[in-house]
């Protein structure tokens, strides 16, 4: 009866690297690959108070120095468009220099009324049903962390954990297979864990960072290589619904992951 020498197994079977109990120091580290899935900002950054003040200041200087507007070139003399433009320009001058500064030509009351009626008529014709949406989405107010419309100005990253075992929050991670390249392992494991219903793109073959958790003395070294990916459409739909996921900014990630993990991961993420 041939006895199969049993190798010391951890609770999870390791497909790639094995270590024998007789060897004092384990040779090969256990490689995992993780994907840092980033939803890039949808909205432009808001200008700060100083930036807005500076732009307003520069605009006034430019208005003081610019050439007189060649109205006869752009508008037909006496047309409605010209009347509208002149009325808007008078308003802008009042806003820039104050009410009493620019000497306005004296217009008769009926001429003013006629101009106003013409401008209102044009506004009615030009009005469209497309309204600009506000930059703050309802999911911001409700704090829906699974929404991909939340925090339009920021970079959002995907964090995942097992609902049942209450593992700590981390980026979607899986073990690297022996015959595969690392970025292929990352892609495969990511699809297995988070589902196929997302339009994602892994940026390069090169890992953007690594994390080495502290392991006991005799255990093999564990290294996780991170790969950067972007999501363009879709949502996480794990194959087994025993997974929680959240889309978080860098500051929100800091409060949720373990301290050791944060120290390893923080430099790979975008501040804004």
């Amino acid at each position: 009866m041939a006895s199969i020498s049993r190798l010391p197994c951890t609770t999870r079977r390791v497909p790639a690297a094995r270590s024998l109990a007789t060897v004092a120091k384990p040779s090969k580290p256990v490689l995992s690959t993780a994907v840092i899935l980033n939803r890039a900002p949808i909205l432009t950054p808001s200008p700060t108070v100083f930036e807005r003040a500076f732009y307003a200041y520069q605009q006034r200087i430019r208005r003081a120095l610019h050439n007189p507007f060649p109205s006869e070139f752009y508008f037909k003399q006496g047309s409605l468009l010209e009347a509208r433009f002149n009325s808007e320009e008078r308003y802008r001058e009042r806003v820039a220099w104050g009410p009493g500064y620019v000497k306005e030509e004296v217009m008769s009351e009926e001429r003013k009324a006629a101009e106003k009626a013409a401008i209102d008529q044009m506004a009615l014709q030009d009005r469209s049903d497309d309204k600009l949406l506000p930059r703050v989405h309802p999911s911001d107010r409700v704090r829906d962390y699974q929404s991909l419309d939340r925090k339009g100005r920021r970079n959002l990253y995907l964090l995942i954990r097992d609902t049942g075992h209450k593992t700590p929050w981390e980026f979607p991670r899986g073990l690297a297979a022996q015959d595969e390249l690392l970025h292929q392992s990352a892609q495969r494991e990511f699809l297995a864990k988070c589902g196929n219903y997302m339009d994602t793109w892994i940026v390069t073959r090169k890992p953007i960072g690594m994390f080495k958790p502290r392991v006991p003395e005799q255990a093999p070294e564990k290294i996780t290589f991170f790969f950067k990916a972007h999501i363009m459409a879709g949502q996480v739909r794990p194959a087994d619904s025993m997974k929680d996921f959240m889309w978080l900014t860098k500051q929100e990630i800091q409060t949720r992951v373990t301290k050791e993990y944060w120290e390893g991961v923080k430099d790979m993420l975008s501040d804004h």
Partner: protein
Amino acid sequence: MSSSLLTRWKPAATLVRQYAKPADPTQGDQRLNIIRRVLYPGNIRNKPTPTGTWRRDVRQTVQRAIPSVQAHNTIERAWLLHKRLVRKRREEQLERKYECMRRAMDELKKIDTKLYMEANQVDDPRRRSEAEMAQMKGLPVMEARAFDARIRGLFPRELKIPADTPSSTGWNYEWTPIERPI
């Protein structure tokens, strides 16, 4: 017959002009005159603006816009400082990211040379892999085009730049997957 002979004779000096008439600015297409007036305005005393004119009250308007020379210089320096701080923050962040990547690649080189060399390979966007060719064979025309649209080694077309306001449709949660080989 004699009448036709009479009508054919014309005194040249009165009925046929032998020289060009000077151009009358009030006749013909006025648009050229408008353009000429815009490009070359009357008072070209105040240079160096491109067409040579400023508004009538330019001197006092500029005084109104700029509080004082010192104030203007202070604002200018504050702006340059602000830009410098933003730039430095961005450069530091990039430096940290690069350092992370460099350390990861050094570690990978120590662990496994083959994986390291493969990671350093750059995908040629002009080539399709065998797996991709095989998968494309079985697809109908439209699906094959959608499949071919994502090119390995290039940025995807769907990666949009930020806008000032969100789109009216919002994020597309109902995206249907396209099977691609890993």
